[in-house]
Each structure stands twice: as structure tokens, then as C-alpha cells.
């Protein structure tokens, strides 16, 4: 019997393609964010609000990831920005090769901000680098205040947290200060925003910060 030493990361192929994506985006001066959350937290509504607030000043494109349907891509297309839908057909996350393929349909030379909406899932997308500049995690008040503790990797790997559906605070059992404390306990440098995509509250502050990040890199 013989033993062969291998010592290779299982996700090395994804990481290599993610590096390729990052370099491609950098060459075109594109700032890319990877928006992650559980299903139904309001990612697509946040995209609609964000695009509406920023499209006068920035050229935006979107990659939509869903397990089934192109419903989200249609919502984004209705706002008038380029969008590519990735249907994972059961896959629980986007990976770098899927995004690489989608980028072929994005007008890169005419894009400044790329928003990638991941599949709704707080577990698997945390492990897959897509080549983005940063992950943004969305947690809605209807999910309660304990999600950062239950899914620490996602909150640890994100640069910003958007607490969405703040208009529902009076009706749900979500302790907002506790949610913030829980999030900061897994990631002390997390930048936190509070929004309601129904009323538009907090969108200006979030977009202001996003513009700062964009201007810094582009």
C-alpha cells in the first residue's frame, strides 16, 4: 500500500475562477457586490430601491440567481438595467463558474456597479467566492434577532448588513438592538444599515455608503 499526499482545497477550482472574475471586473473598473440572505428577506426589493436611487449617476448591471423562474430578472429588467438570470435548477448557491458565464452577457465596458443577487440561503453561499468586492447580507426583522448567531459564517464574511423591513418592527418579535449586538459579536467591523423597502426609509443612507465604496475603487 502507498499513501499519496494531496493537500488540495476542495473548492480550489471555484477560487481560481473567482480570481479570474475579480480580475476581469477590475480591468473594467467594475465594483461588484454579492447580496446574500435567507429567502424572502427582500433582496430583490432592495435591488429595485438601490437601482432607482443610483441609476442616474451610475451604470448598473445585475446578475440574478434563483433556484427556479426568471421572476426576479423580470422585475429588474422593468427598471431598465441590463440583467442576466442564472437558474441553478435546484442548486443552493451561485458559484464562480456560473457568474463567469453570466458575465459574458453583461455589457462590461458600460458597467460601473454590478449587483449579484445570490440564491436565498444563509448557509452555502458563504463558502463560494464569486469574485465580488464584498458580500452584503440582508436580514429582515421578520426573521427575528438571532440569525447572526445561527448562521455566523455569512455575517462574518460580509462587509455590510442591511436590516430590512424595519416598518414591521411594531408587529414582529425582533429586538433590533439585540440583532445589532448579535451581528457585531460575529463581525465587529460589520457596517449596519436599517431599511424598509416598502417605505424607502434608510435607502438614502445605504446608497450613500455604497457610492463612497464605488468611488473609492473605480
Amino acid at each position: 500500500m502507498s499513501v499519496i499526499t494531496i493537500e488540495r482545497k476542495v473548492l480550489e477550482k471555484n477560487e481560481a475562477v473567482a480570481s479570474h472574475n475579480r480580475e476581469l471586473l477590475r480591468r473594467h473598473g467594475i465594483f461588484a457586490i454579492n447580496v446574500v440572505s435567507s429567502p424572502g428577506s427582500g433582496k430583490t426589493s432592495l435591488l429595485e430601491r438601490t437601482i432607482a436611487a443610483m441609476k442616474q449617476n451610475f451604470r448598473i448591471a445585475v446578475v440574478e440567481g434563483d433556484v427556479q423562474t426568471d421572476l426576479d430578472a423580470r422585475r429588474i429588467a422593468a427598471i431598465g438595467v441590463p440583467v442576466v438570470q442564472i437558474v441553478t435548477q435546484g442548486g443552493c448557491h451561485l458559484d464562480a463558474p456560473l457568474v463567469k458565464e453570466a458575465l459574458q452577457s453583461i455589457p462590461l465596458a458600460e458597467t460601473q456597479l454590478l449587483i449579484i443577487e445570490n440564491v436565498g440561503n444563509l448557509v452555502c453561499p458563504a463558502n463560494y467566492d464569486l469574485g465580488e468586492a464584498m458580500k452584503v447580507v440582508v436580514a429582515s426583522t421578520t426573521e427575528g434577532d438571532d440569525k447572526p448567531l445561527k448562521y455566523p459564517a455569512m455575517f462574518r464574511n460580509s462587509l455590510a448588513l442591511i436590516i430590512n423591513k424595519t416598518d414591521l418592527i411594531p408587529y414582529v418579535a425582533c429586538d433590533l438592538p439585540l440583532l445589532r449586538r448579535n451581528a457585531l459579536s460575529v463581525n465587529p467591523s460589520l457596517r449596519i444599515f436599517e431599511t424598509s423597502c416598502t417605505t424607502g426609509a434608510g435607502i438614502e443612507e445605504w446608497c450613500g455608503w455604497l457610492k463612497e465604496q464605488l468611488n473609492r475603487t473605480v
Partner: protein
Amino acid sequence: MHELSIAQNILDIIKDYRPSDRPSRIRTVHLQLGDQSGVVADSLTFCFKAVTEGTMFEGAELDIERIPFSIRCKECGATTSNEAGLFRCAACEGTEVDIVSGTELQVAAMEIVDEGAAT
């Protein structure tokens, strides 16, 4: 639930290492799996069996070494571990910490038996 694609990735990696110059059988594949890697060991074992069926790796055992989650505190310097994957120093309760281990997902080695050799 992405264990199936993880298992496929493992298969893709070990394919590169099978000796091509002599008949052989892969007995065991050693995998290092961090407790906070987000991968379920039992599911992965099941999926590995499924993806290797009908291939030259059929019957190979996936040996999973679990690696505990541990952090190093930037404030007090202590390295502590906890099962919950919490980012809080067990010694001083500091929250400025670096991950030391527990997120691994790596194929470490594999054991090969030469076919036709004396048993």
C-alpha cells in the same frame, strides 16, 4: 445542501493522483473538514459514495478528519475553541479575533493498494 457538488469536486481532485503506470485500487481518501466549514459529514459520505459509483474509485472509503473550530484573540492573545463557532474569546470575552482552524475543506491524502500484489 451542496455536499453533492463538494463530493464531485473531491472526485475531480483525486482523479489527478491515481497512478497511471500500474493497476491499483484506491482504498481510502483522507479529507480534513472543519467543524464550521458548512459541510455535513454524513451527507458528504453518502454523496461521495454516490459520485464514485461506477468509477475507478468505487468502494473507496472517505475518511473524514474533523477539525475543531478555534480562534485567536487579538486582545489577550489566547487561542480558544468552542463548538458553537462563536467569535468571542473564551478567556477574556474579546470579540476581535482571528479564525485559527475549523473552516478547512481539504483533500489531505489517499491510500492506494497495488492490484495483483501479494495480499
